[in-house]
């Protein structure tokens, strides 16, 4: 282990970790938005929305995230979408993880007892009100942990944007491996930073989950 070298390069990795963190947060937000829309479409009364939701989930879960990212970033200009690498990364990864989150959210919503819907409708709530005031508050509690699993995968997934040259942790590690020929050292620094981000996120999710428990 070349500690001298590690001490010299680590500031670059800290900077890169900050980019990884930004990517993770923005991707999570976009993923949650796509997941919510997707779950609503999957549970809609209208067949057309259900179909759109099903195709979204199937296509985005059925093909590699890396390819989706490449279609957007390299293929985008051909259909008039010109994005910088960071934005393409957030949109590509966010829409991808949204497909996984769609299924997580749908699972939590259908896990709520049917009797809840029936009771709410009987006391005169509209379908929308039933969802908004009865089902979602209960389902939201069930979602926290499985969404945490999605977010954990997403943080590691942000490494993919290294392939479109966003200077985040993995790209930085790759660059320094190339210039120093010290793969193990570079892995240790970037790995440690990933672990910190993932550990902190995990604690945050566990805290939210505890707070959301009814009993």
């Amino acid at each position, binding site marked *: 282990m070349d500690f001298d070298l590690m001490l010299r390069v680590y500031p670059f990795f800290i900077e890169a970790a900050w980019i990884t963190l930004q990517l993770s947060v923005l991707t999570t937000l976009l993923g949650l938005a796509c997941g919510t829309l997707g779950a609503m479409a999957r549970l809609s009364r209208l067949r057309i929305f259900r179909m759109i939701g099903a195709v979204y989930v199937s296509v985005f879960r*059925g093909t*590699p995230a*890396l390819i989706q990212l*490449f279609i957007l970033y390299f293929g985008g200009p*051909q*259909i008039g979408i010109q994005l910088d690498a960071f934005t393409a990364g957030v949109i590509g990864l966010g829409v991808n993880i949204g497909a996984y989150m769609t299924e997580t959210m749908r699972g939590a919503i259908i896990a709520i007892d049917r009797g809840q819907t029936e009771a709410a409708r009987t006391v005169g709530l509209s379908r929308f009100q039933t969802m908004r005031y009865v089902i979602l508050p209960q389902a939201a509690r069930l979602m926290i942990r499985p969404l945490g699993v999605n977010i954990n995968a997403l943080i590691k997934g942000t490494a993919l944007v290294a392939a479109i040259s966003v200077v985040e942790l993995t790209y930085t590690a790759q660059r320094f491996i190339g210039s120093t020929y010290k793969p193990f050292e570079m*892995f240790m620094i*970037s790995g440690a930073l990933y672990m910190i981000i993932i550990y902190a996120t995990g604690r945050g999710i566990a805290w939210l989950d505890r707070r959301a428990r009814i009993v």
Partner: protein
Amino acid sequence: MNLDFTVIPAYLDVVLLGAVWTIAITVAAALLSFVGGIIFAVVALYAPLVVRLPFRLFAWLFMGTPLLLQLFLIYFGLVQIGIDLPAFVAGVLGLGLHFAVYNSELIQTSILAVDRGQMEAARTLGLSRGQALRKVVIPQAVRDVIPPIGNNMIALLKDSALVSVIGVSELTLSAQLAIGRTYRPFEFYVLAAAVYYVINLGMEAVQRRIELRIAAAR
């Protein structure tokens, strides 16, 4: 809009050859991750502490860092210590080890879920601990864990795209080759996505059949 899908047929053989390599990598890495997963699970549960602790550290590190980073470590790290593996082997090794760790977590839970009475009965019949594990407990544990492992293997297929980054000429890199000649990224990446999707559907169909057979065997 600047799309021209008529460029595809000229490079279809290149891309399909890439697809064959993708399937080969997926199958090889899947086998490695399955066998590795069982070995890792046994080590994590039964090995002496001096083996178990470093192993836990390794597993923890592998589950907490991105696959892409691990591929760089394996590919360039092995070169550094004097082992110059072909990219294909490094890719299979990286994917296989990564998913072996995930499979091992599933298999550990499953081994612990096999009724204690099975081990006790096997020991009473005169089997050694190792024999009882190998012939009685693990087969049952593995049967129960096949469906979730199937999900991991489908994830493995999609993650196999990452080995293009270390230069394995599978589906993704083949598409890039065609793009390099034609400057048509949209068309060829969409083609690659379609091929992945079809392989994915095939794997899901196989998974369903296996699950039905397991359900019937119970």
